[in-house]
C-alpha cells in the first residue's frame, strides 16, 4: 500500500467533507443545541449541583436561623424569599411561621410548612427526611442548651452546631455507588457518541455516493491508486472527522458545560478513537450499500437515532429495563456509552473499558472486511 496515495486522497476527502455547510451544521452547531436541551431536561430529574431550598421566614428569630443553618449543613443552598409568588417558583419550599422562636421556647407546638414539587419521588422522600432531621436537630439543640443550664441564644446555638458530635455513625458503602449520571454529565457524552454516528453516516456515506454517482470513483479506477488505498483513504478521512468532532465535544463539555471527565481523559480519548474508527468503517459500508444520496441520508439519520436511543445516548442506559440494557450491549453506541459512564461517573479505570474496546475492535475488523468487499467504483 502506497501511503503517499492514501495521504493525498484522505487529505482531499477531509477538506471536501468539512467544506460542506451541512457538515459544519451537524458537527459544530446541532450538538451544542442537543447537549444543552437534553442536559437541561434530564437535570430536572433531580440531579446535578446543590439543590436549593427556598425559605420564607416570617419569624426572623434565632431558632429560624438555626433551622436554616441545619438545612444548609445537610447539603442544601438556602434561598431566603419574601413573597409567596417568589416562593412558588422553587421546587423545594419551606415556610417558617411568625413567632416560631418564641413559640418553641415557650413549649408551644409550631407548624413549619414544607412543600416539594414531586414529593412522591425518591429524591422528594429524601428531602422530607432531611427537613425533618434539621427540625429535630434545632429542637434537640434547645433541649441540650437548656439541660446544661445555659441561656438559648444565637451564640450558644452556634457553639452547639460547631461542637464535635458525641456519637458519630460512620457509614461505609459495600461497593461503588452506581448513580446514573444526569444533566450535562449524561447529555454531553451521549450527544457526542450519537452525533459521531450521525455525521459520519450522513456526510461520510453521502460523499461516497456522490463520488460514485458523478463518476469520480470510476476516474480514480484508471489512476495508479489501488482499491485498498482508496478504501484506506476514505477510512482515514472519516476517522479524522470523528476526531475533530470528538475533540470539539470534549472541549465544549469541559469549558462550557463544565462536566467532569472523571480524571480519565486519556482513557476516554482511547475509547473515542476506537469508537470513531468503528463508526468510520460502518459509514463506508453504508456508502457502499446506499443506492442514492437520499437513501444514504435517510439510512444515516435513521441509524443514528436508533443506535443513539438504544445505545443509551439519549438517557442513561442504567435506568432502562434489563432487556433494553441487553440490547445496548449489542450496539457500538452501547459499548461506547458503557465505557464513558464507567470512566466519567463510576470511578473506574482502563480495566473497565477493555471489553468495550475489544468489542469495538472486533466490530471494526468485521465491518472493514464487508466494506472492502462491497466497495464499488460504479
Amino acid at each position, binding site marked *: 500500500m502506497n501511503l503517499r*496515495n492514501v495521504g*493525498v*486522497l484522505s487529505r*482531499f476527502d477531509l477538506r*471536501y467533507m468539512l*467544506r*460542506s455547510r451541512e457538515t459544519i451544521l451537524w458537527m459544530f452547531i446541532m450538538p451544542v443545541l442537543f447537549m444543552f436541551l437534553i442536559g437541561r431536561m434530564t437535570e430536572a430529574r433531580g440531579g446535578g449541583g446543590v439543590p436549593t431550598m427556598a425559605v420564607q421566614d416570617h419569624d426572623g428569630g434565632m431558632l429560624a436561623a438555626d433551622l436554616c443553618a441545619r438545612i444548609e449543613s445537610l447539603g442544601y443552598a438556602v434561598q431566603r424569599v419574601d413573597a409567596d409568588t417568589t416562593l412558588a417558583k422553587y421546587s423545594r419550599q419551606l415556610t417558617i411561621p411568625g413567632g416560631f422562636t418564641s413559640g418553641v421556647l415557650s413549649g408551644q407546638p409550631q407548624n413549619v410548612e414544607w412543600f416539594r414539587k414531586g414529593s412522591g419521588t425518591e429524591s422528594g422522600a429524601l428531602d422530607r427526611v432531611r427537613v425533618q432531621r434539621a427540625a429535630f436537630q434545632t429542637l434537640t439543640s434547645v433541649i441540650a442548651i437548656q439541660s446544661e443550664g445555659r441561656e438559648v441564644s444565637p451564640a450558644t446555638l452556634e457553639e452547639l452546631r460547631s461542637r464535635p458530635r458525641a456519637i458519630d455513625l460512620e457509614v461505609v458503602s459495600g461497593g461503588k455507588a452506581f448513580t446514573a449520571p444526569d444533566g450535562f454529565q449524561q447529555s454531553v457524552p451521549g450527544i457526542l457518541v450519537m452525533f459521531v454516528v450521525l455525521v459520519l453516516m450522513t456526510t461520510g456515506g453521502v460523499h461516497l455516493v456522490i463520488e460514485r454517482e*458523478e*463518476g*469520480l470513483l*470510476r*476516474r*480514480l*479506477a*484508471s*489512476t*495508479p*491508486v*489501488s482499491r485498498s488505498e482508496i478504501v484506506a483513504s476514505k477510512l482515514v478521512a472519516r476517522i479524522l472527522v470523528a476526531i475533530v468532532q470528538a475533540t470539539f465535544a470534549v472541549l465544549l463539555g469541559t469549558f462550557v458545560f463544565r462536566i467532569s471527565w472523571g480524571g480519565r481523559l486519556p482513557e476516554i480519548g482511547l475509547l473515542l478513537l476506537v469508537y470513531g474508527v468503528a463508526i468510520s468503517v460502518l459509514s463506508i459500508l453504508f456508502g457502499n450499500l446506499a443506492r442514492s444520496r437520499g437513501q444514504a441520508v435517510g439510512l444515516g439519520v435513521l441509524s443514528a437515532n436508533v443506535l443513539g436511543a438504544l445505545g443509551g445516548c439519549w438517557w442513561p442506559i442504567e435506568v432502562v429495563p434489563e432487556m433494553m440494557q441487553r440490547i445496548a450491549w449489542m450496539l457500538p453506541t452501547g459499548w461506547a456509552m458503557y465505557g464513558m459512564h464507567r470512566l466519567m461517573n463510576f470511578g473506574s479505570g482502563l480495566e473497565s473499558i477493555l471489553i468495550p474496546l475489544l468489542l469495538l475492535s472486533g466490530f471494526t475488523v468485521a465491518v472493514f472486511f464487508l466494506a472492502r468487499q462491497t466497495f464499488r*467504483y*460504479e
Partner: protein
Amino acid sequence: MIEVENLRKEYGSRVAVDGISFRVEPGQIFGLLGPNGAGKTTTISCISGLIRPTSGTLNVRGEDMTRGRSEARRSLGVVPQELAMYMEVSAQENLQYWASVQGLSSDEVKRKVPEMLERVGLADRAKDPVKDFSGGMKRRLNLAIGLVHDPEVVLMDEPTVGVDPQSRGHILDLIKERAAAGCAILYTTHYMGEAEGLCDSFSIMDHGKVIAEGTLDELLSQAGDAIQRQTVPEPSLERLFLHLTGKELRE
C-alpha cells in the same frame, strides 16, 4: 502503445465486447466508433482498469493492464464521458488533486496546474467553484484533468458532448496538439464529422464486434458501391457509419 487482442467482456449471458482487436500507435488518434450499446465504453473501461475483461489481452506501453495496478497507469490519461470532477471546489483544486493522484510531485503540480489552466482557457476562473462553470468550461476542465500529468496514452470517451463550437474547437485543437507530441489517443464520439476531421484510423463497432476498420479512405473503399450510391454529393464517414450500423434507434 495500446494493444488490444481478442478482448471479450461478458455480463452473465450478455456479451458486451466480443473478441475485438486493435492497435493504437504513438502520435495516432484512433477513432472507436459505434452506436449506443456497441461496446465502446466497455472497451475503454477495460483498458482503464475499471472492469476486468473476461478474456483477451490489454497492453499499454507493453504492460499487461489486467494485472492490477501496473506502472503503465501513470502514463494513462482518461477523459470520461461524464463530468467526473468535484463541483464544490475550484478548477485549480480539482487539477491539483487529480495531478497528485496521478503521482506528480508537489513541485510538478505547482508547475503543471497553472500551465494546464492557461491551455484550456480557465486561468482567469481558476479559483471559482466548478459548479458555477458553463457546460463548455466543465468539458474543458474534464479534459484538462485527463491531460494534466502529460500521459503518453489517452482514452477519451465522447469528450465534446454538449459543448458549444468554440469549446469544441478548443478541445479538438488540444487533442491534435497532444497527438503531434507523440501521445497515443483512443477516441470515441457520436459526431462523425468530428471523428472524420480528427482521427487517423477507425474501428467501427456494433453489438460488441468490430464490423469495419482502417483509415477513412480504406473504409470508404471497402464499402464500395453501397455507400457511393447513397452519397450525394460525396461519401462521408457519417453516411458510411449509418450504412454499416443501420438507422434504427438504439437504447
